[in-house]
């Protein structure tokens, strides 16, 4: 385990990106780079009323925590935040947030991409579509492109 502050949360509520960035960088003078990634629910051309995010309670926190620690071991990070929502999320609303802080930009960028590639393929979440006509749609299918993105990290 590294000494890097790592905060992982699984929650139904929206999150406050600015507050999460402040949590990592405020009051410090050694942070040179902060990268945030926010993933949002798309309407898919107006077809979608909402996404319903099912998750595996317990495993979701543990698994994201494991990979956040791995990122902290792999890059010289000063802090990591990973927040993933569950439940019903409307188009335009945020689903996932990753924040990385480092002295240098390459580490912050790479760690954020690594965490997102991980979250897409290994974190136990499943998205179900709900259509604007009130019908339940299909479960979103996993993408080969996401598996390929994950493979570049050699895991």
């Amino acid at each position: 385990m590294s000494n890097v502050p790592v905060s992982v949360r699984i929650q139904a509520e929206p999150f406050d990106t600015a507050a999460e960035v402040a949590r990592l960088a405020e009051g410090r003078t050694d942070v040179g780079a902060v990268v945030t990634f926010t993933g949002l629910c798309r309407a898919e051309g107006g077809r979608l009323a909402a996404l319903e995010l099912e998750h595996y309670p317990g495993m979701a926190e543990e698994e994201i925590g494991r990979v956040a620690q791995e990122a902290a071991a792999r890059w010289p990070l000063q802090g990591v935040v990973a927040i993933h929502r569950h439940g019903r999320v409307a188009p335009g609303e945020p689903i996932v947030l990753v924040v990385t802080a480092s002295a240098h930009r390459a580490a912050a960028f790479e760690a954020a991409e690594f965490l997102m590639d991980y979250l897409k393929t290994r974190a136990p979440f499943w998205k179900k579509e709900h259509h604007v006509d009130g019908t339940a749609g299909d479960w979103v299918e996993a993408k080969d492109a996401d598996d390929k993105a994950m493979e570049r990290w050699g895991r």
Partner: protein
Amino acid sequence: MKVVYFAWVRERIGKPEEEVSPPESVRTVADLAGWLAQQGEEYAYAFENPAVVRAAINRKHVKPDTPIAGAAEIAFFPPMTGG
């Protein structure tokens, strides 16, 4: 042994979790999936393409050839689509 299901695996089987008592010949995750597939139409539907269904033991990802001995909780679910 507690088994939990998620997403369309859960929907097809019709319940989120259950206690199961497979015979001793069921040693691996793949064995368990194969045995479950024989427990009724809904199970056969959930495991109709066993290569697609992923598994976790005690909340950690595992491969089909992982032994299930001593597992407190085994989960089956589709490929993940979070993020």
